[in-house]
């Protein structure tokens, strides 16, 4: 039997807000230096930082930025695939695709929940997304032009995402790491379904095969860009790695992804659109051609094929939903008032205090 386990305390989000901010005021005091030392020691010892622990303000800000961008990517990422739900060519594929797009909404929710433990509310983050002050992964600014794009997204885009995300399951921030464990577990079906979809096309008719090759041609390079700029141009990387928010560099992960994909493409019977792709015996890795970083920066700046479309659909869904969210909140307030009015004065409000049926089961 293991003698002592620390009980995991449920985060009390409201109380978390601003703890780091207070500490960041003024010159570092002796107490703060001690806190910083304790934080550094915890990170160095591979312990998890939990919501109510003291943390440097820059660590908090960096996490909020990364988790928010990740959450935004999940929900914007629903769009290119949802584009094919109504046209999926078999009922089996339709069910798979609906379940996958649903998972992405779920992953967005897990991640917004993780950001919330840092005091960043979902409304605030959505507002930043809608007004362009926070980004989402640029890959979703590319269009899904054929059914094969659904497969290419699963295989390449989700594959790149998984390569990025598996190390995040060991991220130093507890709630983010836990969300990632859940996400990675669910994500594994996403990549497989994409690969299987492409395999069916590749083994199908001439037209289906061409569709699959065309999709891989269009998605390969943007997928490599998903790992971010090269290490020597990545502004946040070094610090994130020191904090163990990030565990591997962009280039390291990109190389890992290429090495994984080459044999998979071969098994698919499809070609990766890179004439410079060749095995380097010395390095023990696949060499690959130069990435068009100008395209990456252009898409990032908003000039991708779908930037405007994706953001405006997101804004529209949010705006069109406002009356629904208001109605539910209004009903809850009315119900609370009705309960209070029905309650004899001086009595505690019974509803909350009484365990619900579910709580007793």
């Amino acid at each position, binding site marked *: 039997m293991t003698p*002592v386990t620390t009980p995991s*305390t*449920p*985060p009390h989000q409201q109380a978390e807000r601003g703890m780091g901010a207070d500490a960041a005021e003024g010159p570092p005091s002796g107490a703060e230096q001690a806190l910083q030392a304790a934080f550094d020691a915890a990170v160095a010892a591979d312990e998890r930082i939990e919501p109510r622990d003291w943390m440097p303000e820059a660590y908090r800000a960096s996490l909020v930025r990364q988790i928010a961008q990740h959450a935004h990517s999940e929900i914007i990422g629903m769009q290119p695939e949802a584009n094919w739900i109504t046209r999926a060519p078999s009922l089996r594929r339709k069910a798979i695709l609906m379940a996958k797009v649903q998972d992405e909404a779920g992953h967005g*929710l897990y991640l917004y929940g993780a950001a919330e433990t840092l005091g960043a509310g979902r409304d605030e983050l959505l507002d930043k997304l809608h007004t362009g002050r926070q980004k989402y992964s640029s890959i979703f600014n590319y269009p899904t032009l054929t059914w094969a794009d659904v497969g290419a997204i699963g295989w390449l885009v989700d594959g790149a995402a998984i390569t990025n995300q598996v190390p995040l399951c060991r991220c130093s921030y507890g709630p983010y790491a836990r969300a990632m464990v859940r996400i990675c577990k669910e994500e594994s079906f996403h990549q497989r379904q994409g690969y299987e979809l492409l395999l069916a096309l590749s083994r199908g008719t001439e037209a289906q095969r061409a569709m699959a090759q065309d999709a891989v041609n269009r998605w390969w390079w943007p997928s490599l860009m998903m790992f971010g700029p090269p290490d020597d141009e990545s502004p946040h990387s070094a610090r994130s790695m020191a904090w163990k928010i990030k565990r591997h560099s962009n280039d390291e992960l990109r190389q890992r992804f290429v090495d994984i994909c080459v044999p998979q493409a071969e098994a698919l019977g499809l070609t990766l659109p890179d004439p410079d792709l060749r095995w380097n015996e010395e390095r023990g890795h696949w060499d690959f051609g130069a990435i068009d970083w100008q395209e990456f920066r252009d898409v990032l700046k908003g000039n991708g094929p779908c930037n405007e479309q994706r953001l405006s659909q997101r804004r529209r869904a949010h705006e069109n939903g*406002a009356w629904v969210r*208001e109605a*539910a909140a209004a009903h809850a307030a009315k119900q609370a008032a009705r309960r209070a009015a029905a309650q004899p004065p001086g009595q505690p409000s019974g509803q909350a205090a009484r365990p619900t049926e579910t709580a007793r089961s």
Partner: protein
Amino acid sequence: MSADWPLWEVFVRSRRGLSHTHAGSLHAPDAQMALRNARDLFTRRSEGVSLWVVPAAEITASSPDEKDPFFAPAADKPYRHPTFYEVPEGVRNL
């Protein structure tokens, strides 16, 4: 806006015989909807047989600043743990 939808903490009992474990959080306008949203979000792959939802604002948590006074005293009482005691070789079922 969902700003008016409070945050709920969700606890899932993954199967009978186990206790409810914190799974994450979500927004909902009221407890009934929180339960339903939790069912949809946290048990889509049959991860649970029972759910609790608790308004996040209702949770009182120990402060990390109090970590030492709260939890340190427990650390010096090894006699609370069975491994503290020596058992002669060959004695079973103890």
